[in-house]
């Protein structure tokens, strides 16, 4: 129980971790089971969250029973849902099927993750909502997977890793956006991804800390792309949430994009309004991490620069640990109505939660 946020919050980023490919075997067909056994394929390797990195949060939450945090429903119930008095928790699963080059294997793994997620998590815990894992490298197969499970009421969004081969605003990804809209799902763009191309415009950085910091730049590129390439004009009902990508960079991006659009809009005439207006209408951000200024007084300044109180949604990002403080420490000193919006109302409206 938390004095600052009280009961009934919506937690927009709770990690669901596939502990090993073993748990998926019951959800794969005979061919893929044999294929995995015969090749000793271990499934995608998740390098977005190195096990020993403090931000990944494993050491702090490693349990005597050896359960990997985020892979055990009893643990998630106790440490997240009960501990925080959570009314709704949105599961996000970073299982990197986009790194598997065989698109059919990737699609089979994604389907298995979704069925496992449904059976072992969403069907068993009414407070949880899910994200559909898709082979995003193949938008047509991804759309097929969205169509397969998208009508299940517990799924509220499609999970897309922020690192991708191409920008999600480009035409190539229309099938994913269309499928999401068919099933009234949001698009959740999340930290990480293993698409094979470097995470910066200048190649591969040496250190994880650079990749971690740099993830925010990839979010920025994706956001610029979504607006500029015309996705929000083409799909006016599309809702996008940027998860675990930081927040405080957004004002600078809106200022720059608005300014340049004024002179270059002829190239993209489907962008009819200020780009920042599209962002405020269609895009939300989870606030773990926030990348707040060290001086708490400046935090209100940053929120003012966002130009809207509707954009931020609370998240614990369990089990990740982006700072020494608790996730709700960020809310200290915010006015009560804003706190309510961030911890409850914005997410309820965005995901249309009952």
């Amino acid at each position, binding site marked *: 129980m938390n004095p600052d946020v009280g009961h009934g919050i919506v937690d927009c980023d709770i990690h669901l971790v596939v502990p090993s490919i073993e748990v998926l075997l019951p959800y794969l067909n005979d061919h893929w089971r044999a294929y995995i056994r015969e090749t000793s394929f271990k499934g995608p390797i998740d390098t977005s969250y190195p096990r020993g990195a403090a931000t990944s949060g494993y050491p702090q939450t490693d349990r005597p029973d050896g359960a990997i945090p985020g892979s055990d429903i009893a643990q998630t119930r106790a440490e997240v849902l009960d501990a925080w008095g959570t009314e709704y928790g949105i599961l996000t699963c970073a299982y990197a099927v986009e790194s598997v080059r065989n698109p059919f294997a990737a699609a089979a793994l994604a389907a298995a993750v979704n069925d496992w997620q449904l059976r072992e998590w969403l069907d068993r815990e009414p407070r949880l909502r899910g994200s559909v894992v898709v082979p995003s490298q193949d938008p047509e197969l991804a759309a097929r997977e969205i169509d397969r499970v998208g009508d299940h009421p517990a799924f509220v969004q499609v999970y897309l890793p922020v690192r991708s081969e191409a920008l999600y605003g480009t035409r190539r990804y229309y099938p994913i956006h269309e499928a999401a809209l068919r099933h009234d799902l949001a698009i959740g763009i999340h930290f990480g991804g293993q698409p094979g191309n470097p995470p910066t415009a200048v190649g591969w950085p040496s250190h994880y800390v650079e990749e971690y910091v740099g993830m925010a730049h990839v979010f920025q590129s994706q956001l610029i792309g979504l607006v500029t390439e015309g996705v929000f*004009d*083409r799909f006016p009902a599309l809702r996008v949430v940027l998860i675990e990508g930081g927040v405080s960079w957004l004002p600078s991006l809106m200022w720059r994009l608005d300014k340049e659009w*004024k002179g270059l*809009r*002829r190239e993209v005439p489907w962008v*009819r309004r*200020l780009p920042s207006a599209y962002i405020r209408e269609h895009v939300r951000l989870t606030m773990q991490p926030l990348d707040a200024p060290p001086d708490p007084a400046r935090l209100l300044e940053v929120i003012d620069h966002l130009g809207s109180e509707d954009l931020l949604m609370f998240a614990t990002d369990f089990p990740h640990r982006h700072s020494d403080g608790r996730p709700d420490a960020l809310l200290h000193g915010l006015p009560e109505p804003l706190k309510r919006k961030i911890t409850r109302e914005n997410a309820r409206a965005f995901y249309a939660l009952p």
Partner: protein
Amino acid sequence: MKHVVASVDEIPPGGRKIVEVAGRSVGVFNLEGEFFALRNSCPHQGGELCRGPLSGWVSSRGPGDYDYSRPGEILRCPWHGWEFDIKTGQSWFDPRRVRVRSYEVFVEVSAPPEDDAAGAVEGPEKGPYVAETYPVSVERRSVVVDVPS
């Protein structure tokens, strides 16, 4: 105050002439026989607006659709490319920042681009910026601009 700035022949259709009247630089444009005058200073950062390229209005029904209309009627600032309607001085985007300028004079804004009026294509919002325009008349084969003193 009225100033004779050119003879009609000097500014053929599609042409322009930049003149100095009443201490300010003014661009006079001939659009298919009709004359228009704008202050040669962009409301954004003061670029010499009237030296910018003339183009048409680009609108769209969605990604990939480019609809080009009103050729020659849209003046693009030579610096940052903001677009102004020669006939009205109206800018066609929505810059929120309005800097107070000592000479700022808002002229009457006539109809928005014809596409909008026809309802065929939804255009952007009209911005608060308007380039200063002046009434122009033709008297005895001379182009006359009326600039407040």
